[in-house]
């Protein structure tokens, strides 16, 4: 229907964004009726999201004419931003930003580097940056889930952890069940995405490839490739972040520093 009113693609895009944002805001209003207040957080997220993605679109436009190596800098910047975003899900955790940034850099960064070297990801900026950003964004979400779950598990089990410590257990052994549970829980979305691929959803990348004229079978295979890479990057990120944060919640004297109310 909107196409009837807008001939210019830019104006059409803005109108579509407005309608989609209104759909998101209507959910907020429904939640408000049930006493759940998400107004300011959602509004800020919507405005931030549109500004950021338009800015990135503009940067991509400039980058199309830039040398290939500039894509690496852009991805490095994304890793730092992803580290800062997911660290917010780990309030009170020591060195959450450093742990997140390192984990995403090692998890997503190494998969991007390896896959680019092997030729799975094309080195052109229009391929490297969007695919790389997908890996980084998913690694960020997984990292946030892992840290958040680990934090809540530790806070809910301080008695068990300190009992193990009091019996002479090594600090890292006293939290090993929670490291494992956080790792497993953080990978549930990535596993479900792989499991339901093509049945529950047809991801945007495949749709985009089809629209741009790629052969459907290749588009489908490449979508699997991207999801498998996302799983690898997310899994590696979660593994690194849970292992790094595990040692940071204890003092040098093997005392649990992450305590409720501290």
């Amino acid at each position, binding site marked *: 229907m909107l196409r009837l009113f807008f001939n210019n693609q830019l104006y059409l895009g803005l109108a579509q964004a407005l309608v989609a944002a209104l759909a998101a805001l209507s959910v907020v209003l429904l939640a408000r009726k049930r006493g759940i207040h998400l107004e300011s957080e959602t509004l800020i997220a919507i405005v931030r999201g549109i500004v950021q993605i338009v800015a990135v679109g503009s940067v991509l436009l400039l980058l199309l004419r830039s040398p290939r190596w500039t894509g690496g800098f852009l991805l490095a910047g994304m890793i730092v931003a992803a580290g800062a975003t997911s660290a917010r899900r780990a309030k009170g955790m020591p060195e959450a930003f450093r742990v997140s940034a390192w984990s995403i850099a090692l998890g997503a960064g190494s998969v991007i580097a390896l896959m680019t070297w092997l030729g799975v990801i094309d080195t052109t900026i229009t391929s490297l940056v969007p695919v790389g950003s997908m890996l980084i964004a998913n690694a960020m979400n997984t990292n946030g889930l892992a840290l958040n779950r680990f934090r809540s598990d530790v806070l809910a089990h301080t*008695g068990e952890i300190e009992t193990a410590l009091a019996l*002479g257990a090594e600090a890292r052994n006293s939290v090993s069940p929670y490291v494992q549970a956080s790792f497993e829980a953080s990978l549930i979305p990535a596993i479900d995405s792989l499991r339901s691929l093509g049945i529950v959803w047809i991801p945007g990348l495949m749709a985009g490839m089809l629209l741009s004229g790629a052969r459907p079978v290749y588009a489908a295979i490449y979508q699997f490739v991207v999801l498998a890479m996302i799983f690898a990057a997310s899994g590696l990120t979660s593994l690194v972040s849970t292992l790094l944060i595990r040692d940071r919640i204890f003092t040098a004297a093997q*005392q*649990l520093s992450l305590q409720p109310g501290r």
Partner: protein
Amino acid sequence: MIASAISDPILRTEHLGRAVKDKVLVEDVTFEVRSGEVLAIVGPSGAGKSSLLRLLNRLDEPTSGTVYVEGKDYRQIPPRALRRKLGLVNQRPYLFPGTVEQNLRFGPLQHGESVSQESIEKLLSCVGLKGYASRDVANLSGGEAQRVSVARTLANSPLVLLLDEPTSALDDTSKLEVESSIQNVVHDQGLTCVLVTHDTAQAARLATRAMLLEAGRIVRIGPINEVLHA
């Protein structure tokens, strides 16, 4: 040499204190415990009794003073070795999922040691739970779980047993069972013990000396009757 061993305290605190931000939990606490002695720490809720016990086990770091174990500053003892020497039993047992036997083996296993079946039975017999080795901890009563917790700490062969309100979460019957187990361990085996309790009658039954703590500071310390009836 022998006279020195008898008179030297097994555990001594010197101006021990802990403050978190502006809140003082324990302040300037100096006392000693001799081998085979049972010291009860009594006082109202929030007096700092459990905080003091956590400092003794070094689950928290003192912000002032220190603790000497057999004359050695405990900051010079590796924390894991120290915690075996000063075995802590919490108010809640926090048993690990599995069998009673697996729980008893946990402490020694952390140091690569195994416990013989005979020792397991002996430990369980000590706390009145003979024949419980293969039972799943999920099926134990509160009193039984707390007695397993005592036996689990004893499996580490501690120098001093630190008991933090071991019966406060139990009903009267279970409380008497646990108390009887503690009495058995402490009196029959001559184990040194520091008992935190808000129950002065329990302190009188189990301890030889008492220390009254209020607002983190020692108000009185001495023979049990003098402290409780002053």
